[in-house]
């Protein structure tokens, strides 16, 4: 996984709440068996509307997504994160994220940052006034800066450590192999097996 330390880029304001993963990447795209190439499907239903913000050329090249609350709700499809990263996003800022989406993001070096609604609104307004406004997402200092504003954010220390260093979760877990084996030896015998 690519480490995430500090990212600076321009942003797109998506003034919608409850953006569900069916919108981020519609189900027709889920038939693919690869991990790449999902950027073309990002918000593909909404992008048919010429007025949709992703079609606004002023925001071309943006790498930070500003969104309303409850972003990533719905289906567990990690394809939603693959679509966002493949399109070029590095981070998304929202007042609240769906749990599974947040977890999926961390696994892909993509940062969901939870910040108060009024702070995100201020950033949106600044970006709408001047699309060249740069926003910095700083995981080292747990802070977001932009448009002369800044705000700290919180993240689990373990998650932050893995993101900063781009560590492979599976390799980390396999270091606990003796604990896993010991646990397996203790499991009750009445638990079911599938075979």
């Amino acid at each position, binding site marked *: 996984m690519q480490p995430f330390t500090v990212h600076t880029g321009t942003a797109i304001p998506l*003034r*919608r*709440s*409850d953006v*569900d993963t*069916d*919108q981020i990447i*519609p*189900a*027709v795209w889920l*038939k*693919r*068996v690869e*991990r790449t190439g999902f950027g073309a499907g990002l918000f593909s*239903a909404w992008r048919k509307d010429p007025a949709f913000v992703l079609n606004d050329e002023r925001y071309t090249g943006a790498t930070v997504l500003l969104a*309303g*609350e*409850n972003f990533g*709700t*719905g*289906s*567990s*499809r*990690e*394809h939603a*994160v693959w679509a966002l990263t493949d399109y070029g996003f590095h981070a998304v800022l929202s007042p*609240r*994220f*769906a*749990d*599974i989406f947040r*977890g*999926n993001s961390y*696994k*892909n070096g993509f940062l969901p940052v939870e910040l108060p609604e009024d702070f995100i609104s201020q950033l949106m307004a600044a970006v709408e006034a001047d699309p060249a406004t740069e926003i910095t997402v700083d995981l080292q200092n747990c802070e977001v800066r932009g448009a002369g504003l800044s705000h700290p954010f919180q993240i*689990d*220390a*373990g*998650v*932050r*450590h893995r993101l900063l260093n781009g560590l492979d*979760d*599976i390799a*980390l*877990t*396999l270091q*606990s192999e003796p*604990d*896993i084996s010991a*646990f*397996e030896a203790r*499991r*009750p*015998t*009445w*638990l*079911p*097996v*599938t*075979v």
Partner: protein
Amino acid sequence: MARTLADKVWDLHAVTAGSGGDAGGTDLLYIDLHLVHEVTSPQAFDGLRLAGRPVRRPDLTLATEDHNVPTSDTLLPIADPVSRIQVETLRKNCAEFGVRLYPMNDPGQGIVHVVGPQLGLTQPGMTVVCGDSHTSTHGAFGAIAFGIGTSEVEHVLATQTLPNARPKMMAVNVEGDLPAGVTAKDVVLAVIAEIGTGGGQGHIIEYRGSAIRALSMEGRMTVCNMSIEAGARAGMIAPDETTYAYLKGRPHAPKGALWDEALLAWSDLRSDDDAVFERSVTLDAATLRPFVTWGTNPAQGVTIDGRIPEPASFADAGQRGAAERALTYMGLTAGTPIREIPVDTVFVGSCTNGRIEDLRVAADVLRGRHVKAGMRVLIVPGSMLVKAQAEKEGLDEVFRASGADWRSAGCSMCLGMNPDTLAAGERCASTSNRNFEGRQGAGGRTHLVSPAVAAATAVAGHFATPEEL
């Protein structure tokens, strides 16, 4: 210290506890059952192959084909080449890694969340995961069950564990008796409308109270299934006699002395009287009515006696904007009585309401009646076993005689990855769980309802309850 049901199950599965520092607050959780389907697994198996890792516990892993499978002409090859490749990829992966698979047309095949419980694989006190958000269904047995993404699927395949922070605990109490005609689906839609689509975020919900205890296992699964629509990590119900009666004798349930051992362990699986929940909500069962959603998220719903709300009636600006957009998408006008909205499609099925009890309810409504002219009605059993049972009871005849289409098992029109989709502008009364834009087909309009309301709507041509027919 007093613990909740979820705390107890969590503690039983913590291989290592979050030690702070760089490890953060995540425990390493052992997973008792890992369910797999074709959509969220191919990239996970690829990851294993790349790293040269085996599946650690194929004997705790089970795969089924559900999302892409056609529900008619199932003996022909899948027509859509992309869907076919995805299903074939699952078959290859299961063969290569030694995972048991229930393929299309196998008597064991079905929607992953219908298959686990019907086999008796989902049991109290277990941890169950699947690359699918509606894994919360299995919490109905007093298991911790939650959906995961594809990277986590790979993690579980490789290690049979998941690093996870302990969620917060929330109690949803539904007390009293449900009025006649009000079902588990209406209960959970009312809960979601009450706490909102993000109301359960970061929490495991434990459903409690006399109305919950009075539900059948099927009803409990319907309630837990939609916990994710309230944003919760999982939903749970403490096991009791209803749970044990459902489990006993199922193929994978413990037998003989092991059953007694298991029963003893299960008897501890309830929240202590003085256990603390971070949040608690209470609903009065007696006030509930059949529910119909009008918008594009599952919290946008009213009772069948209600009207489409005025967006201006929402105090919150975000909710107001969402309501305006939803009404435009849904082609609805504020103030319209729900009963006067014409419907052209009815879908009975999905992991929410595709079990035998749901089909019996729908058949009771349709028996001796005919669906409204021009109405398309799809009845899709949740699994091949449900299908066989329904046919044994003659329900298929009832459906066909009424003019409904009786199908084979799969996710079908719940998400329209197979040929069962809505066309743009079509309006569907659906027993599934998501009314998101385009969920059942691009431009399609979904209203979430119970099987009873769906079947009555099929006859009436507009939203209705069976009593009104």
